[in-house]
């Protein structure tokens, strides 16, 4: 039957394209209009790793996302990269979910999918930057987790993984089924070919609603979220620094004096 792999992905605003975020003063929410959406870059590494494992071991890759209807685009990208099936969890009841409620919703979907050997997630999403959904999902599915993974080898029913930690690496053994969150550098995600993109456009995306999941309603969306955003604002990142343009020797001297004055060079 091969490896059954589930990849959880998120569609995010392409923050690299943002000059300055606008906040709607009335609702206190971010104005997303005009900001292009992309598959969370770190999730592409998870997708690529899943497809590579499948290509080596046989099996099936299911790509799963929770989001609005337009998140279908992200799932199609997953299909074009080699995923076999795509499921979108889409329901107003899911809206406003924090990481706990998101992971709960994903866990309910994965229980509905049934058997799995491996779940792969990107280390974090570039909009929320929390990195919490992966471990929370692992806990809710009662499987072991390894985070910050930059190498995966499959040894029968076990994984040998390398984890990027402060100042070095850890190598771990981890039994299957398991959940891994991966970092950039684990692989080089493929660029889908034109024909694979065209083919992905034709494929069916399964849409599951809250009713399909058989989940506890009070654990979904805003209602199921322990944390609430009270206020958001745009920080002033500009610093009023001096900018000089001198000969290299002079510039180096001036900078050194500045660092001495600030007590950094001592």
């Amino acid at each position, binding site marked *: 039957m091969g490896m059954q792999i589930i990849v959880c992905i998120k569609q995010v605003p392409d*923050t690299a394209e943002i000059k300055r975020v606008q906040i709607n003063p009335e609702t206190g929410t971010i104005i997303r209009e005009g900001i292009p959406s992309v598959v969370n870059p770190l999730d592409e590494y998870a997708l690529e790793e899943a497809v590579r494992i499948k290509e080596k071991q046989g099996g099936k890759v299911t790509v799963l996302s929770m989001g609005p209807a337009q998140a279908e685009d992200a799932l199609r990208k997953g299909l074009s990269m080699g995923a076999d099936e795509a499921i979108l969890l889409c329901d107003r009841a899911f809206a406003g979910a924090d990481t706990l409620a998101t992971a709960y919703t994903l866990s309910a979907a994965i229980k509905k999918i049934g058997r799995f050997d491996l779940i792969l997630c990107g280390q974090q999403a570039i909009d929320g930057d929390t990195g919490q959904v992966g471990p929370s999902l692992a806990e809710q599915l009662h499987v072991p987790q390894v985070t910050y993974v930059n190498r995966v080898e499959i040894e029968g029913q076990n994984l040998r993984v390398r984890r990027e930690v402060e100042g070095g690496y850890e190598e771990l053994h981890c039994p299957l089924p398991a959940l891994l969150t991966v970092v950039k550098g684990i692989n080089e995600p493929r660029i889908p070919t034109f024909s694979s993109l065209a083919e992905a456009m034709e494929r069916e995306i399964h849409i599951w609603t809250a009713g399909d999941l058989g989940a506890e309603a009070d654990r979904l969306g805003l209602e199921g979220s322990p944390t609430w955003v*009270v206020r958001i604002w745009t920080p002033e990142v500009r610093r009023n620094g001096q900018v000089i343009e001198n000969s290299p020797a002079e510039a180096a001297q001036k900078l050194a004096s500045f*660092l001495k004055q600030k007590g950094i060079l001592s």
Partner: protein
Amino acid sequence: MGIQIDKDKCTGCGRCLAVCPFGCMEVVERKAIIKEGCTVCGACRDVCEFEAVAIERGSSRGTPDIEKYSGVLVFAEQHQGKLKDCTLELLGAGKKLADKLQQELAAALIGSEVDMLCPPLFAHGADKVYLFQDEILKFYHTDPYAAAMTAVIAQQKPSIVLFGATTTGRDLAPRLAARLRTGLTADCTELEIEDESGLLMQIRPAFGGNIMASIKCSNYRPQMATVRPKVMKKPVPDILRRGEIIRIEGKINPKTIRTKVIQVIETMDQIVNLEEAEIVVSGGRGLGKAENFHLLEELAKSLGGAVGASRAAVDAGWKPHSFQVGQTGKTVCPKLYIACGISGAIQHLVGIQTSDMIVAVNKDPEAPIFKVADFGIVGDLFQIIPELTQVVREFKGDNGSGECER
């Protein structure tokens, strides 16, 4: 206790015995019973196919007996018997919160043979240390640490729990929050207590650093947060300060630890590791090729700092990903960040904006990096950086200190 076994549903299958991290379950007359030592961690409920185990936990209505939760608990991260700096920073931040609430500050110290770390925890502000020692806890593994923290939290019932936003804290905290069914806020840069409610206001950057968000967790306890290293200031230690050590008696069942660390590799190619460095010298596209990084390595060495790289430099293959600073790489918070040949895309700025001081060297006067720099030099980095290295070396030489203090 908040855990019950429904004797009508229990079949005595014994699966819960196998997963209990504390070995405190037994099957008597074909029914599971819970013995002394239960931490209400929930492993038995999770594995029960017959839904015979019920735990009173949060629902949408929140955590029951919320008013019984009090005090601030800091996860005292240690590595091979040495406390991480972020632990001390968290004690400083936690003390302020505890004082404002007029509640106690405690530390959860988990490991093997780590008793000697209690005095520094007291010296930095802890009133109590919850000490959980077991040989099995020598290296960090998610499963036993989550079990040990659950035990500490069950005993102390803290209102607030803080972790460093390190690879350990960010691995452990979300697992634990899911188990306790409570809220968790990642990567906070500021924490305060709201005046009237006494709730923890958790402030963090999001959306690629484009926004700041203030988050609270009103109805669930504990209120949990990971805090970005080096943002909070370390308190001045008072070595005469004493506190109470509370030993948590518990033996973790080795069979419940699923992952196993087989090797720890310290990379030698970095003089100092990036996240902990006081000075970081980073290079970007402007360096042109991998070999040119030696200019930055020389400067970093003279300053006693570490070398980093922008996404462009990593994508070009000049440095491995472990060097990358910015959104899909590392967040740094040094005293001094020197950006060389880095234009300053928002995804890079996110990773450096909490640095005390930012210096930029770039040939393009319009580069966005200059907007966030405290000191900018427009010019050719290939000339400026060697000059600067020379000036620093001369200064250090004159000073006789050789290396910058860390």
